[in-house]
């Protein structure tokens, strides 16, 4: 992270009891410590998510215990479980209805790629086909520690987001899209099967 204040000067001042910060730092500090997830679970991963939020693993330590039942108040969407093709439009719509800045954690093998149900006719092969994912957690299901780790990774990501300048966060840029097209049910599959602006299937290179 580029620091506008000299690190040595800052620590010197801190020893004297003066805390120097910037708007960006303060803003990111506030945001990363109050990530409110959207309260919804799709499958067994949601049970792990519930366990993470409960007292034993205590997501509240990271400021993320306030699960909101409405997307209007949520910052984070934890896609916890198998995304069926029936459910995918709803998830994309919920994501669209969340206010900026918003983040997505793709939790578990199913949300990443369809997981063990990848061959299923009704399973979406990864939620990143329609919405941008910030953190992927592998596992089937991932343990609560893994979700906590993803949370910490997300906090690191938020901390590194710039408020102004060239590489500022995309949600601050009015030219970037704020919503993503909601897929519709086609004759055989969801239409479109993926968002071409967002999703590029990995290409196998043979050498």
């Amino acid at each position, binding site marked *: 992270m580029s620091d506008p204040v000299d690190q040595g000067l800052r620590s010197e001042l801190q020893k004297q009891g003066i805390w120097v910060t910037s708007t960006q730092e303060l803003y990111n500090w506030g945001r990363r410590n109050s990530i409110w997830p959207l309260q919804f679970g799709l499958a067994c991963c949601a049970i792990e998510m519930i366990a993470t939020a409960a007292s034993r693993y205590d997501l509240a330590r990271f400021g993320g215990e306030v699960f909101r039942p409405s997307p209007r108040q949520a910052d984070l969407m934890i896609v916890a479980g198998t995304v069926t093709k029936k459910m995918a439009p*709803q998830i994309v719509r*919920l994501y*669209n209805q969340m206010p*900026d800045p918003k983040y997505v954690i793709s939790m578990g093998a199913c949300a990443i790629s369809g997981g063990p149900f990848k061959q299923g006719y009704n399973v979406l092969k990864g939620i990143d086909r329609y919405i941008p994912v910030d953190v992927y957690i592998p596992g089937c299901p991932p343990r609560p520690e893994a979700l906590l780790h993803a949370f910490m990774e997300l906090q690191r990501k938020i901390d590194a987001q710039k408020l102004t300048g060239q590489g500022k966060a995309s*949600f601050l840029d*009015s030219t970037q899209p704020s*919503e993503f097209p909601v897929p519709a049910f086609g004759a055989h599959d969801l239409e479109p099967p993926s968002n071409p602006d967002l999703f590029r299937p990995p290409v196998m290179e043979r050498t």
Partner: protein
Amino acid sequence: MTPDPYFFIVIFCGVAVIFPLMPLALAWLWRRVFQPPRPGPAKNATYECGVESIGEARVQFQSQYYLYCIIFLIFDVEAIFLVPFAVAFTGLPMGAFIAILVFLLLLIEGLVWAWSKGCLDWAKAR
């Protein structure tokens, strides 16, 4: 010189106005300077658990429902009176029996009246 005792109320009112206005002003400034609003049709749509909402949110209930509730309430209260009467029936004088009969008669009369008015027809032909 002591300030006017009402002066503190003026200060209090000032703080009460500034306190809520400050975050609003800050949010407005934030929007102007850093985060331009990016609304869209999906974002502004009614939240309906992710499903597209159908029809109007305004629903009218029939007044019939209210009438039903009232009639039910009357007979509910009747049961409350009748049970202790039935329990103590053998030890009661003749007057008590007549009194409860009058009470029942009044309620039955009411029921007949409501029935004849058509209050018990759930789906009334208009």
